[in-house]
């Protein structure tokens, strides 16, 4: 049990601390005081009930982005396309939200599901290419990110069909109707609750269902899965589809719960955040929630940090890069902190040739 505790808590916490220290050094180099900066970040993330809401709001798409990456990992797939899937989900959810006039019990769920499905469609392209043509999903999902960014740009641009007629030169969609908007309970955004429920559902699928067993068999040993009668093609497509649905849902919740409309290019880098979060959580769906809260808090606090110290918010992504490196290379953390050997990291095995496999 002790070893378990160390793996799940000590290593990620150590990685985060080392990542923050590395960030502090960069802040020093850029001529600012890291303590002031981090103080501002903490206050901006937790200092008031508004700050707390903001943290929860920021964490919500991160939970889903993290789940998307973690779920694909289970099938041995690397979904770097979270960003594009999220954009597509956000745009389509906005469209359902402003274009249809329905009672809330229908309208809100419909908007969320359509958003998820839009993301899923993009993921399915990558899944099908992987399963039938052997196209490596890492490259195809990255390419689809750019495609999705261009497509959603156009949807709300001057020539686009979903442009807000009242926004003048600003490219954005109209405001979603109240019947499609996610409300807030006190400081608690309902979208966050949805995300937590989805995390629980994903955990349950992975660990208790027949589908989860099939997905993880393919992820561990595709040859043995074929031998056992599991269709690797089907599982690859299904896993990519579900993974991308999660990312698309993240975009939909962002639209319905936070932004209230679609604006192109928001929240860029979410796909990469998802990787960090999934690895920080050791690909466990439940652990994704606290991991996402941590990164969400950094995001939420970065505005106040910048206003106090001139440290640009990009420092967050640098810190995240360090954290990702450290959770993927536990031996470095062990060495840095002189920890004992028995702390394992997340064993990930994704890299392989790009051709048909």
């Amino acid at each position: 049990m002790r070893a378990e505790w160390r793996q799940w808590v000590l290593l990620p916490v150590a990685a985060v601390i080392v990542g923050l220290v590395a960030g502090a050094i960069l802040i020093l180099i850029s001529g600012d005081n890291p303590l002031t900066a981090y103080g501002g970040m903490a206050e901006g993330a937790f200092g008031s009930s508004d700050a707390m809401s903001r943290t929860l709001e920021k964490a919500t798409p991160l939970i889903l982005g993290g789940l998307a990456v973690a779920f694909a990992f289970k099938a041995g797939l690397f979904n770097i396309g979270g960003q594009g899937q999220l954009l597509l989900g956000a745009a389509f959810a906005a469209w359902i939200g402003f274009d249809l006039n329905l009672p809330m019990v229908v309208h809100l769920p419909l908007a969320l599901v359509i958003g998820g499905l839009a993301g899923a469609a993009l993921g399915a392209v990558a899944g099908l290419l992987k399963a039938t043509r052997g196209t490596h999903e890492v490259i195809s999902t990255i390419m689809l990110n750019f495609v999705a960014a261009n497509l959603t740009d156009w949807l709300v641009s001057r020539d686009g069909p979903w442009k807000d007629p009242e926004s003048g030169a600003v490219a954005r969609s109209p405001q979603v109707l109240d019947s499609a908007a996610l409300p807030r309970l006190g400081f608690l955004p309902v979208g966050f609750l949805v995300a937590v429920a989805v995390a629980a559902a994903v955990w349950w699928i992975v660990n208790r269902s027949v589908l989860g067993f099939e997905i993880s068999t393919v992820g561990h040993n595709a040859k043995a899965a074929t031998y056992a009668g599991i269709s690797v093609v089907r599982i690859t497509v299904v896993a990519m589809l579900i993974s991308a649905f999660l990312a698309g849902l993240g975009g939909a919740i962002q639209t319905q719960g936070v932004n209230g409309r679609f604006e192109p290019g928001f929240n860029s880098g979410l796909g990469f955040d998802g990787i960090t979060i999934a690895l920080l959580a050791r690909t466990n769906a439940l652990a994704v929630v606290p991991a996402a809260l941590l990164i969400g808090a950094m995001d939420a606090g970065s505005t106040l940090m910048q206003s106090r110290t001139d440290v640009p918010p990009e420092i967050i992504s640098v810190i995240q890069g360090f954290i990702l490196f450290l959770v993927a290379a536990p031996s470095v953390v062990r060495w840095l902190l002189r920890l004992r050997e028995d702390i394992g990291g997340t064993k990930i095995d994704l890299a392989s040739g790009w051709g048909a496999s």
Partner: protein
Amino acid sequence: MTRSEATVTDGPEPTTGTPASTAAPAGDITATMAPDGSPWLLEVRGLTKRFPGVVANDNVDLTLATGEILGLLGENGAGKSTLVKMLFGIHQPDEGMMWLNGTEIRPAGPGDAISRGIGMVHQHFQLVPPLTVAENIVLGAEPRKRRLFDRRGAERRVREISERYGLEVEPSDVLGDLPVGIQQRVEILKALYREAQLLILDEPTAVLTPQETDELLAIMRDLAASGVGIIFITHKLREVLAVTDRVTVLRRGRSVGTVDTSSATTESLAELMVGRSVVLRVDKNEAEPGRVVLDVRDLEVRDDRRQTTVRGATFDVRAGEIVGVAGVEGNGQRELVEAITGIRPIHAGTVTIEGFTVHGHPRSVREHGVAYIPEDRERDGLVGDYSVADNLVLTEYHRRPFAGHGLRHPDAVDHLASELVERFDVRTPGIDVAVSTLSGGNKQKVIVARELSEDKHLVVASQPTRGVDVGSIEFIHNQLVAARDRGSAVLLVSAELDEIFGLADRIAVIYEGRIVAVCDPATVSREDVGLLMAGGQPSEPVAAG
């Protein structure tokens, strides 16, 4: 560091040159002399290597004279590979010493060993398929001309050596296009190019036809005659008796004796190797074949590189008989078996199992009563990170009682697993440990338990005892015979002719993707089967079984 006398069991008198251990201080230990008064080409004394949980080599001694062929005999897991990996610098010994020509050596790595004149032909060829023969041979010691790689010079040099030793190869051929026998020559040439005086051959005949094996043995004799010392690792007694001068036998990591080949017999070596008298034949009754269960007609199958490797195979297997497919590896066996079990698409022809026509879909094949023990168990038959229990239901996980309404039922899985572990004598600390932690024999027992726990119409067993200890081999053989006696049709694919002759009621010989003959093991000779496996025709027609 105390050393104990190597245990020598019965059998001919050992001729090991090592004097009884006198526990001299390490600094004073020196090499001993060969009978002719010169130093041994190689002397190994007290070599010990420990891995976590096992002592792979325990105080091993051996000697080798110049121009001598020494057989290194032992079961799987007896420590042969570990020993030669230390000689070749891949592993470093924990204790013990090695001398080459009377000089103490301690190879730090393969490069070091090579520079001292040690060459090794690995069991799994260490060759790079897309490179040419010459490039493979000179890799690591490349000739250069004006700072560039001298390809012509390399090819010239390879041609010279190949002519000198009578190992014919074409230096500019791309290695991956060549047959296995030629690839092995390239491996030997690689060592000779580096002027090896000591050549280690690790299970070199495992992949060869009987005819290729004979050629290799002749080459070994020639090399020894030209002054190269050879360590020949094998578990095939016949080959040891045919070519070696002396034999050192390893058992559970210890050298249990060294004997002169001239005074050894198959039985004495087998007993030395296993530690008890071995039953070389499987007890079984006469088969009572019934209806045709598996019917294969004009089957054509392609491999991963889209080459047609099964080219019009036709044969059948009846209920209550074992049909053994004999053939040199790479003659389409893998593709044949994968097509029958639905894993690989059928390009042309038909496979029918009890009236069901196979069209891919491994699951539908299984549902028609087919069990399959795959050739490469780690790769195909098990999920290493999964528990023993999950591996025991790997093919049934989706069915009642193991699952229902899309959910898994872990209690039912555990219940079955406990029962099978008991019944099939799987040695495991528990049903929830990862299967990758088990020994090779126990991993195979997990597969056998899963596949043979219920009666099936057809049992397909591919290399079922490869890399498995003797105890497990007997167990697995008995299970296959028992399945036959309960009325299953059994298709056994094996590269070991002994296994085929021991188990099969009919032998189907496969060569280049065709079944070239079906014979009766009671009347056909080993030599004739060997000839058929190599694509030849026996002088007398083979009796059909």
